[in-house]
């Protein structure tokens, strides 16, 4: 589904991502973990086209997307959510999700239709699946943090992605909200046979749903594999899990 070959990114002499090789198969759920500053967000931004790698190649569905602009990568079937909640705060919840339907299905260049009538059923169905149907007409910027994260997930899902990148999907959520979100993600991933790649600091979340884990440390990939194998890996225990145990 997604292949990353020898990708590096340097900022003013600081190597944020260092020759990383990584791949994820269709339908797989994988997590990228690592201490703060390990390069997880940079790694995501390289994949989604927000940053251009200095060297290396990135393939999405066997097509080279290295250096392609974000909107094109998105239209090729990649969705993402951001670490800091990233929605359209002055639009209603409904309009947030509907806008993503409109743009992703390339109806945005229509100057003359009425946007209100487009994708009503799709938007309502998605909001219902996310449990946001009662808040459809609320201003999204006025919602709780947890709800805003759900709106953002809705925006990402409206783009009908085949692969979804989630940067800290449960950051700032209460334990209950976290459990709910994870259950939701698992259900949606199964229903839509989504490929899921996420970063997360909550190890309980990571080990509860990830089928594969990649560990970044100081920009380098130090381990990759099944959760049990990664948990047993000596390097990982030393640099990362060791901090906690």
């Amino acid at each position, binding site marked *: 589904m997604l292949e990353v070959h020898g990708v590096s990114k340097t900022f003013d002499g600081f190597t944020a991502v260092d020759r990383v090789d990584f791949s994820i198969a269709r339908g797989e759920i994988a997590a990228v973990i690592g201490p703060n500053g390990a390069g997880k967000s940079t790694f995501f931004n390289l994949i989604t086209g927000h940053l251009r790698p200095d060297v290396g190649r990135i393939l999405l569905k066997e097509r080279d997307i290295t250096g392609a*602009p974000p*909107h094109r990568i998105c239209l090729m079937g990649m*969705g993402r959510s951001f670490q800091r909640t990233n929605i*359209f705060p*002055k*639009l209603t919840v409904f309009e947030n999700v509907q806008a993503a339907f409109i743009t992703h299905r390339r109806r*945005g260049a229509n*100057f003359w239709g009425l946007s209100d009538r487009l994708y009503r059923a799709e938007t309502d169905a998605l909001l219902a699946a996310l449990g946001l149907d009662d808040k459809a007409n609320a201003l999204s910027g006025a919602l709780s943090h947890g709800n805003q994260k759900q709106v953002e997930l809705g925006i990402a899902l409206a783009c009908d992605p085949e692969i979804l990148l989630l940067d800290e999907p449960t950051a700032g959520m209460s334990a209950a909200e976290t459990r709910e979100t994870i259950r939701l993600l698992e259900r949606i991933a199964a229903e839509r046979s989504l490929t899921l790649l996420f970063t997360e600091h909550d190890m309980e979340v990571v080990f509860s749903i990830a089928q594969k884990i990649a560990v970044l440390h100081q920009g380098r990939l130090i381990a990759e594999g099944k959760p049990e194998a990664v948990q047993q890996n000596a390097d990982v225990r030393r640099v990362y899990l060791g901090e906690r145990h």
Partner: protein
Amino acid sequence: MRRIPWTLVVFAALLVVPFIGSRFYTFVATDIVIVSLFAMSLNLLLGYTGLVSFGHAAYFGIGAYTCALLMKSANVPFLPSLLAAGLMAGSFALLFGFFCVRLTRIYFAMLTLAFAQIVWAICFKWNDVTGGEQGLPNVPYPGMEWMGSAPVLGNFRVGDHFYLTALVIVALCFAGLRRIVDSPFGRVLTVLRDNPERAQFIGVNVRAYQLAAFVVAGFFAGISGGLFGIFNRGVFPDFAFWTKSAEPLIMTILGGMGSFWGPAVGAAAFIVLNQQITSYTEYWPLTMGTVLIVLLFVFPGGIAGTLTGIVARMRARPSPGATTVPVSERGMVKPNA
């Protein structure tokens, strides 16, 4: 409560203005109608797309010169000239906008200003075509003879005829703008305003859409400029000067960029205040400045935003317990939200 079709009420009221029979009222009304199109075209950028242009007068000026030159020097009829004014302004918006959308925020604003000053300088210096500093005086009125022989309208002056012509054209432009902001394209513009970074990742080519909005805004500014040149009986380099770019900005803030009609309300308030205050004191800019400061702090939604807020609150009162967010205008900036 049945909704009152305010748009039609206002349009009907404006149609009645020539019946008052006052040359002055018709003059002021013509000014308001034409300039409100200028302000509304800017608000497509300011209120809907989140782009601050300090150089919108460039397209107003280009439209004014195009229409005036075609009508005066080439004897082209009015409607094709006016359409050409819009298209010419839109074409220059495409050219200048191509560079402007590559920059963001203040850099974008400064580049729009720079292009507008170039346009002004060309109008000022290119004597053979633009008449230079002297401008192009004596722009002819469009041929409106059919109105002279029509019943009722036949008794009106030529200024009244032009007023009615301009009113209908501007109303059509407003209908077009309304349609555009309600379209899927309009929704994408509000998405850009709210969060351009996120917009990229729902598949929006941000620069392309910003450029499209810039061109549409330029087109309508050009139409407004073309009408204004005729109304003013002449076209001058000042039409493209940076102070001219400030006017629609002030009007939009005065009326409220948070609602569709805000800029038109602001244009009316601006022109009426200007007329009234200059008849009492020569310190019109000082007074206007004070009004703006008060408005920005006390009524950040502008006149229209404040009024719609009051109406929304009055409507909400009969049904306590309803926890709806007051929505001043669908898809628009909610002041103080």
